[in-house]
């Protein structure tokens, strides 16, 4: 199999326009003959389904939520990046490209990242036209703020709920197409398998979560926009139901998985407390515009934070990274926090947290201004912890948050299965080994609004597709596989719950495949995950039947897939004998404790191909070439 960057040659600037110009088109009257399946209705899925519907395609959009407005994009807080040079601080497409590529520690494709930077400004145009109420200056212009890994102010926001507002924009665009008849939204449907006919993706098997009925949806192409898999760690900032099942089922049908070990740990989350904790809560990176992170200089200092004088506080990010200070990228922020906690300076139960302090900003600009910028975050913190962060510094700790890895796609966002497109967090494409803050919303919307409608059209125009019936042999076989798997889950009659296995998996992954990884730990984790998986199929219990709303059956199926994916994550982290971005192998570090890349050996995308049961997956590589930016050590000091 040939894995390569399929972008056109020539100068980076304008590559996407050249690709667009060469893509074939489908005539307006032909478009309504094409049935397309979009799985997922977050920023990427809703924007794609709406845009495809506007073009005139017949679209079915599946979501496991009761409404497309609930996808986890809704929880994104801080903002969306765009190169508009709104602050006269030297921003440009080139600089956003540069920051994003370097932020990803040179493990993403130049062509993809450049395209993202080029499209970023139009996302803001689109969202504003939809009525997204971005923050405004008093003169009426769009306001911006800064995010990690950038020295410019290019992040557009709506308080601490930018994801919600952008998702509502996409949701309303989707509603408009539902009203117009081109899009059918199918809520409470979970994709459980991909239907491949003659080597092409032609549909999905989905379960109606209310009736339990298995449905076959066939069409001319399938788009997966099903998000990331940080919930493999059990405790993460992802929503409870976020899962990897759709992409994992596609992998099992032959779609290659790229960089599965690249997981982002967000430095500022509310620390875990107690065994009943269901998930971790994020506190937006945008707070680092105004907040300073610190720990007591003296080990084990358990005085109240306001009793610790200035001279006895260690502002560890400002000390270690004077140029970027508190606005370093997330991978560095998380690791620095882990380091000071490991050295005994952490605060809170178990000493695993650091302070996020807004005191100086409140003195500088006033509490009222801070409440306008972050009001809903303060309220959320108050609900969860019971304190007002303007009076007592927040305690924060790193948590699994976002997955840069995902299904491999080419420049057109198509996976290794022709006709299967993957967009948003579900693909691996643009974020390299570390995503910069406010870049996920940018990527999801660039994929959905602007890239996919063009490239999917090009695929349809250039491909002869015979009709596929919902009762074709391939569809029936896929449905039989799904039915057998559900039956198997329901007939285990063991003693342990799926959540129990999930927690155990999370502990293994957090220890071995978390903020720091090492050879021995990863090798051991691969065996442990395999043993857990075996124990799961032996001893899990799932009450109820297949023909009803059965939330435990849903959960068990997702955990079963995490138990397979978790092993691949460890295999990937073990095979990458270097440190880069989020992937910190203790064997590969500089004297200052920073990641040491091996550009000769690992300047590539690791692409995993599924194997037959019992066989090891195969690791292929897509080489990364850097024509514009010279490879160099990242420096935020």
């Amino acid at each position, binding site marked *: 199999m040939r894995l390569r960057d399929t972008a056109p040659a020539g100068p980076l600037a304008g590559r996407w326009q050249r690709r667009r110009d060469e893509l074939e088109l489908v005539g307006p009257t032909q478009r309504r003959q094409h049935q397309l399946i979009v799985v997922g209705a977050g920023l990427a899925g809703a*924007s794609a389904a709406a*845009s495809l519907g*506007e073009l005139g395609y017949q679209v079915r959009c599946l979501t496991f*939520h*009761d*409404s*497309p*407005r*609930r996808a*986890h994009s*809704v*929880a994104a807080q801080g903002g969306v990046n765009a190169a508009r040079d*709104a602050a006269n601080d030297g921003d440009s497409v080139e600089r956003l490209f540069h920051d994003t590529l370097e932020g990803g520690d040179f493990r993403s494709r130049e062509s993809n990242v450049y395209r993202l930077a080029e499209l970023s400004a139009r996302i803001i145009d*689109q969202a*504003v*036209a*939809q*009525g997204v*109420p971005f*923050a*405004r200056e*008093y*003169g*009426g*212009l769009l306001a911006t703020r800064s995010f990690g890994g950038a020295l410019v102010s290019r992040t557009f926001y709506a308080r601490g709920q930018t994801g*919600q*507002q952008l998702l509502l924009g996409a*949701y*309303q*665009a989707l*509603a*408009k197409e539902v*009203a117009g008849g081109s899009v059918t*939204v199918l*809520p409470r449907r979970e994709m459980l398998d991909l239907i491949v006919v003659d080597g092409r993706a032609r549909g999905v098997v989905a379960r109606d979560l209310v009736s339990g009925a298995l449905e076959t949806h066939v069409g001319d192409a399938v788009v997966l926009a099903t998000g990331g898999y940080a919930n493999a760690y059990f405790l993460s900032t992802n*929503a*409870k*139901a*976020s899962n990897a099942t759709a992409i994992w089922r596609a992998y099992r049908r032959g779609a290659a998985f790229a960089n599965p070990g690249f997981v982002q740990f967000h430095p500022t989350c509310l620390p875990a*407390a107690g065994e*009943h*904790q*269901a*998930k971790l809560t*994020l506190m937006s990176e945008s707070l680092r515009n105004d907040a300073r992170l610190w720990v007591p200089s003296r080990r084990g200092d358990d005085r109240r934070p306001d009793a610790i004088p200035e001279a006895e506080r260690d502002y560890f990010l400002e000390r270690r990274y004077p140029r970027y200070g508190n606005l370093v990228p997330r991978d560095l922020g998380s690791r620095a926090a882990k380091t000071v906690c490991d050295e005994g300076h952490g605060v809170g139960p178990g000493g695993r947290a650091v302070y996020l302090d807004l005191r100086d900003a409140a003195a500088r600009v006033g509490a009222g201004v801070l409440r*306008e910028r972050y009001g*809903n975050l303060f309220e959320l913190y108050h609900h969860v912890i019971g304190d007002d962060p303007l009076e007592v510094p927040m305690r924060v700790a790193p948590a699994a948050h976002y997955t840069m890895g995902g299904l491999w796609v080419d420049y057109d966002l198509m996976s290794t299965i022709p006709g299967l497109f993957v967009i948003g967090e579900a693909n691996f494409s643009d974020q390299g080994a570390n995503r910069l803050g406010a870049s996920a919303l940018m990527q999801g919307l660039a994929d959905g*609004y*602007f890239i996919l409608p063009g490239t999917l059209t090009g695929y349809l125009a250039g491909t002869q597709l015979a009709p596929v019936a919902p009762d074709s042999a391939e569809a029936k076989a896929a449905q039989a596989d799904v039915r057998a798997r559900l039956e198997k889950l329901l007939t285990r*009659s063991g003693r*342990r*719950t799926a959540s*129990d296995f999930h927690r155990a998996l999370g502990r293994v992954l957090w220890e071995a495949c978390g903020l720091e990884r090492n050879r021995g730990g990863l090798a051991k984790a691969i065996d442990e995950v395999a043993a857990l998986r075996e124990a799961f199929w032996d001893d899990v*219990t799932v*009450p*109820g039947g297949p023909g*009803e*709303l*059965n*939330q435990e059956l849903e959960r068990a199926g997702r955990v079963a897939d995490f138990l397979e994916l978790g092993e691949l994550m460890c295999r990937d982290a073990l095979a990458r004998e270097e440190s880069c971005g989020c992937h910190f192998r203790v064997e590969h570090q500089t004297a200052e404790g920073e990641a040491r890349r091996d550009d000769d050996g690992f300047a590539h995308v690791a692409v995993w191909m599924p194997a037959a049961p019992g066989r090891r997956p195969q690791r292929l590589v897509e080489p990364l070439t850097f024509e514009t930016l010279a490879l160099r050590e990242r420096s935020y000091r």
Partner: protein
Amino acid sequence: MKLTLRIWRQRDAHDRGGFVRYEVSDLSPDTTLLEALDDLNEKLVGGGEPPVAFDSDCREGICGACGIVVDGCPHGPVPGTTTCLLPLRAFRDGATVTLEPFRTGVFRVVRDLVVDRAALDRVVQAGGYVSVRTGSAPDASVLLVAHDDAERALDAAVCIGCGACVAACPNGAASLFVGAKLTHLAALPQGQPERARRTQALVAAADREGFGGCTLHGECQAVCPKHIDLGVVARLNHDYLTAALARWWGR
């Protein structure tokens, strides 16, 4: 902490349903009510019994998936929270807490505490948007929006579509939900061209779905987890009257 949970159990839409009592104990006051339900469910599943079905996802109060009537009040006794953020410290140790679905004439019970709120999506589909095609948007920098207008729009746009306002209303009205969407778009210049049409279409859609009429009880604003107030209903009424008058005058 120890609590007795009196939970509405109903197998499906056709089942009559009824309350079942469960004891939960050894819980920290910082645990949320939904985490207590998670804990109860793990015990039920471990014993081979079907767990209590309830909707929830983000657990941060932003997705709008969760919604339980707790002791007669949608989202429970703490103002300005969703059910997922409701801590057990809101209850007395040893108390009996009653959990019911968001039951209204329009929201059918799907199972236990899960209801069908698709009617809210259909109301938005009737016109709760700005009709702009992808790619046709003008440069956002040329559109000036006054700071306070953007803030007012956002105050209404924060609606999470949970449906608590409907569940709290003696009339089963969705006026707070509809008013929030109308107010969001009416506060912005982008929302002006379709303003009158949108108002009439959303009100008609809410009527069609069977939501009741608003008689300004104000129960909705008392339970709204996002502090949306009756001002949005005043905006709805104002715009509806303006649109109706404009049509009557043949403009």
